[in-house]
């Protein structure tokens, strides 16, 4: 190649493009190359330095759930024809990706009860931020009401996105400031919420309508196999995280965000949307459509800067939903709900811990040790951890105020009754081993 270019060496070529004064000042301070075997063993050793317990002894949730990941999901997303393809800019050779995007949109539409779903976003928190912007654009209003129980990381994310635009985020029980009537663009309700509580979406719908506001519901796709579909219950926009749909937790990413809306809001939807199209011979295929909304066409006037989304993760979810079907997903949801209910009943029967909230709940609940401090909770969880059980997330660690005495516990279909019984025995023992004297009580 160098001789075709008439260059004696690569340095000569580079010097025709880059002034010497702009070249690297020194060689990189990086280690020498490792052969693949050494890369493998180096990273395997790092993986070993993380604490992983048996799946049935892992009760951590808080937006990243311990559901079973079917082998067929990883098998399909490992296919290089899916994983090493690019965004379908040439649809004729991308019908694989595009068809799966259409299937994904269809399945998520069925789950959410919304007619329009895009082909994925980055994650639940940032997807909810985009939902907030949709509502602000649609109504022209800059106030957003946030209902109690929103995941703290989602709320923090909304604040960061909202700040440059002067959008105010207010708690939803606010009745207004300085006598001015509330004029919110939207109410944002998470259900099941951060504490696993299930809310009445119909009531939220009425409330939002009373203010002329949109209703945005953040939800979890597994829950939607059992609980009322938020779109059918009146949500204008439904957003959330799709990690529960057959994706490995992988320390929090990548999962994907999903974003769904009513027909009326379709053109406000950011991101890529797959649509059906025909060719000149009448064959049916799929393309990314309504591209005039997007950054590559509208640039500074685009509704969002999103370019790459999380297509392969959405494909994983599509495989999951296909493999399980409605029955399988309902079974996962019911098993999760029953196991969680069983565990909470047993905890209250056999330990001093009590539920923190009385509301109906799905797959997750907060339990409190009345009178305990955050260090007490930490001690108990440390003892449980030594017994090989990750019993929950102390809410003090997540900066949730007023819940220093509480633990967030998630239970899914991977927890058989024997594991739940072992949990309760261990929790009872750990609690008394930490010298706790019960004082009862329930919030």
């Amino acid at each position: 190649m160098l001789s075709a270019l008439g260059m004696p060496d690569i340095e000569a070529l580079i010097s025709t493009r880059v002034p010497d004064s702009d070249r690297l000042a020194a060689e990189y301070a990086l280690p020498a190359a490792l052969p693949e075997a050494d890369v493998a063993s180096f990273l395997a050793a790092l993986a070993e330095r993380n604490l992983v317990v048996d799946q049935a002894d892992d009760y951590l949730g808080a937006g990243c759930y311990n559901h079973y990941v079917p082998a067929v999901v990883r098998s399909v997303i490992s296919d290089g024809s899916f994983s090493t393809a690019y965004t379908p800019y040439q649809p004729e050779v991308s019908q694989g990706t595009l068809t799966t995007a259409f299937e994904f949109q269809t399945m998520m539409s069925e789950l959410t009860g919304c007619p329009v779903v895009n082909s994925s976003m980055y994650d639940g928190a940032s997807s909810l931020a985009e939902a907030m912007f949709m509502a602000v654009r649609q109504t022209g209003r800059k106030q957003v009401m946030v209902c109690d129980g929103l995941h703290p990381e989602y709320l923090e994310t909304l604040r960061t996105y909202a700040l440059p635009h002067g959008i105010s985020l207010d708690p939803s029980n606010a009745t207004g400031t300085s006598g001015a009537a509330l004029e919110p663009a939207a109410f944002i309700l998470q259900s099941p919420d951060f504490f696993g509580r299930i809310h009445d979406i119909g009531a939220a719908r009425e409330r939002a309508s009373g203010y002329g506001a949109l209703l945005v519901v953040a939800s979890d796709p597994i829950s939607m196999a059992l609980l009322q579909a938020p779109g059918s219950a009146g949500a204008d926009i439904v957003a959330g995280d799709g990690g529960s749909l057959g994706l490995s937790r992988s320390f929090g990413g990548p999962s994907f965000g999903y974003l769904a809306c009513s027909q009326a809001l379709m053109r406000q939807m950011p991101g890529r949307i797959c649509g059906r199209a025909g060719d000149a011979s009448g064959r049916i295929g799929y393309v990314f459509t309504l591209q005039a909304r997007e950054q590559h066409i509208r640039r500074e006037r685009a509704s969002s800067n999103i370019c790459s989304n999380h297509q392969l993760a959405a494909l994983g979810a599509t495989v999951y939903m296909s493999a399980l079907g409605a029955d399988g997903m309902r079974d996962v949801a019911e098993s999760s709900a029953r196991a969680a209910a069983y565990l909470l009943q047993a905890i209250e029967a056999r330990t001093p811990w009590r539920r923190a909230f009385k509301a109906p709940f799905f797959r997750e609940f907060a339990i409190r040790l009345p009178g305990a401090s955050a260090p007490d909770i930490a001690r108990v969880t440390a003892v449980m951890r030594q017994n090989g059980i990750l019993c929950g997330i102390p809410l003090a660690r997540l900066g949730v105020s007023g819940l220093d005495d509480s633990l967030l516990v998630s239970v899914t279909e991977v927890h058989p009754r024997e594991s739940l019984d072992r949990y309760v025995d261990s929790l009872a023992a750990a609690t008394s081993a930490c010298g706790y004297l019960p004082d009862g009580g329930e919030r």
Partner: protein
Amino acid sequence: MPELIFDASRPGRPSPSYTHSFPASTPEGASDPLDETIPRELRREAPPILPSVSELDVVRHFNGLSRMNMSVDSAMYPLGSCTMKYNPRIADEVASAPGFTRVHPLQEDADVQGCLEVMMLLQDALAELTGLDAVTLTPAAGAHGELMGLLIIRALLASRDESRHKVLVPDSAHGTNPASVSGAGWTTVTVPSGQDGCVDLDAFSSALDRDVAAIMLTVPNTHGLFEPALRTLADMAHANGSLVYWDGANMNALLGIASPGELGADLCHLNLHKTFATPHGGGGPGAGALCVSSELEPFLPVPRVIRDHDGFVRRLHGADLPFSIGRMRGFSGNFANLVRALSYILGLGKEGISRVGPDAMLSAAYMLRRLVSEAPAGTMSAPFGESCMHEFVVSLSGLKESRGVRALDVAKRLLDHGVHPPTVYFPLTVPEDLLLEPTETESLATMDAYADALLSVLSEAVSDPETVMSAPHSTAIGRLDETAAARNPIVREQF
């Protein structure tokens, strides 16, 4: 028509049970706990319509669809600015370790030292490669990192009691740049490129006023050119109190050649799915990294990953980071892809990484030379000569004028040759353009075959334009009517 998975549904087809069900009734004969915890009125009325298929049906369906995709694994895919390099297989394997896949992001730092060490090592390597001081691995994509960077600049200016509202962006910039500027609540001021394809210094200078918060540069630019005035642009911006943001999408050209931090960049995002070979996935998930100077470090988002003096790696949260812009996503980052990027860097090492830029340049320069010297007269021109870095722009305006054949038609005909076309119609600055980036992982034989294919399409466009304008002919489906699709969007199947 590609069949949808729904077409294989058969009612009552048993779905495999991947786990045991939790029984509705207990041995003691008590009621279903579900009835106590979830009242009927909160439950779904009708089940969702999802496929009712066997696992074999699932495998066959997606296997069939995979064969309708072109990919880096199947063919040369030289999309400009996308860096479609080979994704080493070891990356998936190391990322699949249960010690990585099963870990929860909110486990205590002491229990996830392996994950945090991965992030720390990657941060250190990227800081070294960009010549910048601090790194966040939280961005989910490059565009995410762009917005993050602009919000950081905004926070820095606010800390100086300054309020500026404009960002200078070259006309050749990727659309995410101005879109990100809008996301930061600011106004894009577009700076024209000169005839040489580089930022017009006079126009830049006139546009640079005290209301300019930042300039955004892509280096090399999307014309594939290394701006000769980079230090000048940075000095002018800094003298004006503006920050210098580098869009690092084209970082592949710079590895082993130049460093953003040494050339005046205050921030630079990286696309790990481009430069660091994590899979593109048909449109993500990728991962971004945002590297910043020490002046901007306090404003980095939550969480930060840092190393204590004793080697312990910890995450810092909001309470520890009073000047942080806050969160822009849940948890810590697209971790599985961070493992992949680290494995890539470890496998290449110092020598390998230092050769990426030069090899990528050599490949692009060679292909441009072949095309320029062998293209039929009047069909193709190289508007910026032959001084490209890792990618180049050619224009097919001549072909359009003489034969009516457009860049789009040439792209479609290339599909019949079993290769993926280059990027078309981007950047917007050159009419009927192709932006081609071979990357350093394609062999001479593959590149020669690609050049041969492109050249034969150009010849065919002269002698038999109809065949080119009606291409592709051999793909599973022909050109789809995107206009009709957008007029009446059908975005899901109806049952």
